[in-house]
């Protein structure tokens, strides 16, 4: 049960990460790329959760919390930079 479920989850998360990386490369503006980085960190949190379920090492959920914290701070910092840069459409 658990290996099949986590395989499905890893495949879906991998496809999602591929699409987000395509958006980061093609993104017309800087805000698109910041949004893509935020989304990639969310996908990383999901992958850590699926890995914790797969291996039974539930210590990794703490790592997911830490990654959520770091991703929040990184997004805030990038948005502040985007505000302070002024109007560059």
């Amino acid at each position, binding site marked *: 049960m*658990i290996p099949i479920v986590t395989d499905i989850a890893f495949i879906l998360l991998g496809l999602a990460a591929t*699409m987000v990386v395509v958006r980061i490369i093609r993104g017309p503006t800087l805000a*698109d790329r910041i*949004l893509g980085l935020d989304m990639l960190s*969310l996908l990383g949190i999901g992958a850590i959760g699926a890995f*914790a379920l797969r291996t039974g090492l539930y210590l990794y959920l703490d790592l997911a919390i830490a990654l959520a914290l770091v991703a929040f701070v990184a997004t805030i910092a990038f*948005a502040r930079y985007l505000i302070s840069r002024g109007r560059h459409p």
Partner: protein
Amino acid sequence: MTIAGGVLVVVGALFCFLAALGVLRFPDVFTRMHAATKAGVIGAGLILLGAAVASVDTAIILRALVGLIFLVLTGPVSAHLLARAALISGIVPAVTANITPVPAQNTDSASQNS
């Protein structure tokens, strides 16, 4: 409980996949932000909750709930700040999105206190 956890993990991964599809396909930063924030946060939170439910342990479930609450609290804040930054930096919403942009009032004060 293993079956419930597995179903939660698959549903969360499906939400993440649909969020990434929205990030790829939507026409605008402001519409992409809807997909990335709402569906992405719910997807990652459901995966965390499923991994916790599958292990029948109170400490692990509490830890995953802390992570889920943290995600739900910080997702709208960062998305709102990013949307405001995108509007201030001069990104015009797409016509098909049917959004009337409110002019950013305090552009000067926002650029001063950075």
